[in-house]
């Protein structure tokens, strides 16, 4: 009996809580991706590199003596500007052509490759790891949990709720959803559609940059870091339903828990195939995902 309690306490419970921290990280990545897809119909292959850019901006500011909390505020603003002008300068140019899907996919894919090499040139191939801004660990019911991960769970959840509120409870959000649903109608009703598009792209990019700063103390910063979460984030977006915030949250939590708990029983190498298997199943059986598209209910 005590053995069972010990297993629950030392093996399962920490597994679930650790999985939760990873889940929040994945959802933060998936949110930006799903919003950009849901509204712009653009699959942003460079999303991971925007995440990396956020992290690199964070360590650059930190090396100039800016403290971590200030970085958390500055980086998303800078990233939003970068995102806004990326959309206006590059994506809008190919957005209205017939091969929009292929062209934007190739464009963002190219951006990703250039960005990765640019990081290598600017910062070198070796990894950086910022010090944890909240060091130490707390004991909760016999589980030892790093304080920073607890903070990540709380702060990440707050960001997710805030994003949901902005999209579903503000007039700005209503404009965004209207533009996603029918851009000609929205535009004839006076919604500045092209600005809304650029703004939404900027918002998604800012979220990626914010995740970069938030996650750097745990996962370190290096040129190929953009590839880290991106596959998992794409799976979450597909399983959750492309463009759905609610779907991304549910899928993000479920998929990371599956991965975390399965690693107790099967070789951890099977974690990724398991998740991608679920994604393929969804594509076959329920291609619209758990919930529908943004602006479509």
């Amino acid at each position, binding site marked *: 009996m005590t053995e069972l309690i010990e*297993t629950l306490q030392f093996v399962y419970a920490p597994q679930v809580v650790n*999985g939760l921290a*990873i889940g929040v990280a994945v959802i933060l990545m998936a949110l930006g991706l799903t919003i950009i897809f849901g509204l712009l119909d653009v699959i942003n292959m460079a999303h991971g590199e925007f995440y990396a850019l956020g992290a690199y901006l964070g360590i650059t500011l930190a090396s100039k003596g800016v403290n971590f909390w200030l970085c958390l505020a500055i980086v998303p603003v800078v990233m939003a500007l970068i995102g806004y002008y990326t959309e206006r300068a590059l994506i809008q140019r190919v957005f209205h052509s017939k091969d929009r899907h292929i062209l934007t996919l190739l464009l963002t894919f190219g951006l990703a490759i250039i960005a990765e090499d640019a990081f290598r040139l600017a910062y070198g191939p*070796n990894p950086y790891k910022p010090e944890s801004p909240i060091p130490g660990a707390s004991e909760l019911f016999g589980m030892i949990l*790093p304080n920073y991960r607890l903070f990540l769970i709380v702060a990440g959840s707050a960001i997710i709720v805030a994003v949901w509120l902005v999209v579903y409870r503000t007039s700005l959000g209503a404009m965004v959803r209207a533009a996603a649903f029918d851009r000609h109608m929205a535009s004839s009703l006076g919604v500045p559609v092209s600005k809304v598009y650029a703004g939404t792209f900027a918002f998604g990019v800012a979220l990626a940059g914010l995740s970069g700063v938030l996650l750097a103390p*745990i*996962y370190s910063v290096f040129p190929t870091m953009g590839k880290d979460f991106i596959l998992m984030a794409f799976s979450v977006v597909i399983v959750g339903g492309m463009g759905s915030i609610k779907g991304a949250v549910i899928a993000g939590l479920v998929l990371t828990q599956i991965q975390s708990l399965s*690693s107790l029983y099967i070789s*951890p190498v099977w974690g990724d195939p398991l998740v991608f298997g679920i994604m393929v199943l969804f594509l076959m059986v329920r291609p619209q995902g758990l919930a529908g598209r943004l602006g479509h209910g």
Partner: protein
Amino acid sequence: MKHLTIAAAIAAAFTATFISTGAHAQQGPIKIGVVTPLTGTYAGIGQQVKWGIDLAIKEINDKGGILGRKVEAIYEDEEANPNVAVQKAEKLFQVSKVDFLTGTVNSGSTLAVGQVAERNQRLAATTVSFSDAITGDKCSPNMFRVNAKAGMQSAALAEWMVKEKPGATVYYLGPDYEMGRSTVAAFKAAAEAKGAKSVGEVFAPLDNKDYSPFFGQIRAAKPQVLYTSVAGNDTVRFLSQLSEFGLAKQMQIVGAAGSVTAQNMGAIGKAADGYVTGAAYSAELDNPANKKFVADFKNTWKAEPDLYGVDSYGVMYFYKAAVEKAKTTDTDKLRAAMRGLEWDTPQGKKTMRAGDHQAIQDMYAVKVVNGKFQIISKVPGEAAVGADTCTKF
């Protein structure tokens, strides 16, 4: 691009032919072919190889060369690719007529170049490759290894561990591919043979981002020692996450020689402190020969020597001692002289084992203290080298 490379190779081959006309064996300078990665991922290692060899050759030539002949090195870039290494080695033997070949880094290149040496009836030595097979089941009568093999590193570490914590319980975490599985298996065998008890193992995917899903199992197994062979950025994450979860304080963390290196030490920071590994060299080694070597190396190249630099420096003295003993560069006589040869290096006296061409040398357990490796114990070479498993000669 491919055509360009071929054209360049042909042009280089012609130039080399013209330059080398008139140079015959036993006269003129002794030529050492060095096939080493000068570009690409392993360029950093190739740089140390070149620095070590150039420094040794300068010293040898300043003192009159070998048997009165000057020594010169001819470099070829192998790009850490066995196919390229074979072409370049063939070219060095056939066109440049080198007397001896060294420099290969990647174990696959060393094995392939050994066969080229056999065909050309010349001798070669590696100063870097770790794979046990080179002086084990894939040994070659024409290939020698002057550096320590992987098995010697784990034996040294296991030796230190059981002395420090007799009957220690050990947990293993490696990356899930050939290198990870073989390093864990080798260390496990060495540790269990010396009385340690294994309490669990897990293999994480390469480039794993979060190790916390494994911490519950590790904590439940309550090991005294945690062995790891993850490398590069994986080590950064693994060690910093261990200390984030407060696990690093509860157990002694040990690992493979390639896990914590100069490249990732900075990013790991404080979380690397206390990490112990088995190694064949540290620039901190306290003996007069090493102090002089480190000072000369720093003076000449404005950089600190590492394991690869010192072994590549040492191979030139190995060759010099053998030629002086054989009084010729004739392959068969030289091979006989190399077998059982004892020579001095900054790492101390080394002995070339006749049965498998593996150098026997003292090994060390080294610990990270404030971002630097410090020697904490010495394991005699005989205890670390293990049995001779070569059956080809």
